């Protein structure tokens, strides 16, 4: 018998955080919403095991990201994507204040966007990010540096490049 109360408490405590992270990673509210819910539903399927992990939220986040990455690849073949996922949902628009930021995030390569979100929004150390994305720490630092520079240029905000990655 799975612990529904435990899952509900976990979902309630973490779902907005994961949604926020997925929004920053995908730059699309509808995608973030769908991916977040799908990832949590998969967590419930395996809750007996997932609930014992040190960080179940990291499991959910990773599954959501992999689902997103898979969809992007399939979207390169529009017909196949339509067959597999149905017509695209109407995406809620970003608020006026966030239009520029969302547009800028879309311009950054996926790998850079992911490490920026994990480090700067999720708050993981460089080593933790490296573990989560299965890349060497040097690679993570390089992606962070390039991603910040790209973001700063797109937003015309020099302050974004002033921070160096913290271990």
């Amino acid at each position: 018998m799975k612990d529904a109360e435990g899952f509900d408490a976990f979902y309630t405590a973490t779902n907005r955080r994961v949604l926020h992270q997925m929004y920053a990673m995908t730059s699309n509210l509808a995608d973030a919403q769908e991916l977040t819910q799908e990832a949590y539903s998969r967590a419930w399927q395996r809750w007996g095991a997932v609930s014992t992990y040190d960080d179940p939220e990291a499991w959910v986040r990773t599954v959501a990201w992999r689902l997103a990455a898979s969809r992007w690849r399939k979207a390169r073949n529009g017909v196949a994507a339509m067959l597999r996922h149905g017509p695209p949902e109407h995406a809620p628009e970003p608020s006026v204040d966030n239009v520029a930021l969302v547009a800028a995030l879309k311009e950054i390569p996926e790998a850079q966007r992911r490490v920026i979100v994990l480090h700067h929004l999720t708050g993981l150390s460089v080593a933790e990010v490296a573990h989560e994305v299965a890349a060497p720490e040097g690679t993570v630092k390089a992606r962070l540096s390039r991603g910040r520079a790209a973001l700063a240029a797109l937003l015309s905000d020099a302050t974004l490049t002033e921070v160096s990655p913290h271990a």
Partner: protein
Amino acid sequence: MRNQSALPDNDPVQMTLVSLRSDVERTPLADSLSVRRRGEARSRHQAVAGALVIAALVAGAFGVADLRGHQRHSGIPAHQSPSPTASVAIFTLAANPFLRDGDITAIGPYGELLDSGTEPQNKVQQCIDVSASATGASIRSTTLYEKKLGEVQAAEHVLRFDSAAEAEQYWARLSSAADACGHGNPAEVTTNDRGPEEVPPDSYRWSRLSTPTAAAGIGYYELGATHHANVVVVLEWSSMGNPTGDNAGWVWDADRLQLAVDRAIT
């Protein structure tokens, strides 16, 4: 935010990203009961699909399979028959269902993996025969090679089943085969097995590191298997030692497994 200690209090990138919260707060999410129901619906569906396969196998043992075969010869594709599995998407394979040159650029000391366009010579690696329990599947296989050091033996097998349930059953059987794979002759090699280990959401992997004798040959073998609906992709890797380091990393990581199944279908 899980671990803010990794960041200074006034991190400008964090402050920029936090501004997205206003959009997040106005975006509704399903309640936890709905999310659980969604997960349970998938579990039920998978269970029903698995039960149907078992029922079909039992029926086949009593000769009902002949009738099913007759239906197929009558031009009725199995996946179009009315059943609880009818709503499951059935995919055909891509014209080239294999990983492409450049998809895997470097693994440890090894360079890019290239598709040789030839079928693997060794059907059985360790004690795992990928095709042995793939009854009813169409199988396409290729050998992947690496020319920088020239000592990698890798293979990719793409299996297409008539239904998602059959694919799921095969996937589970392959995992069991890896789990049950004997340690060989301990007088000849010492082995260190890992897995089968789940790679969420739809994959697993298994590895064997051996200290070989001259006759034993290859020292590291890794199998990764992933599936989507009625398609399963199995990836095999053999080299002199684990190329990712001290037997801690994996060749078939989640991204490579996912890419392989994406290539197979789209």
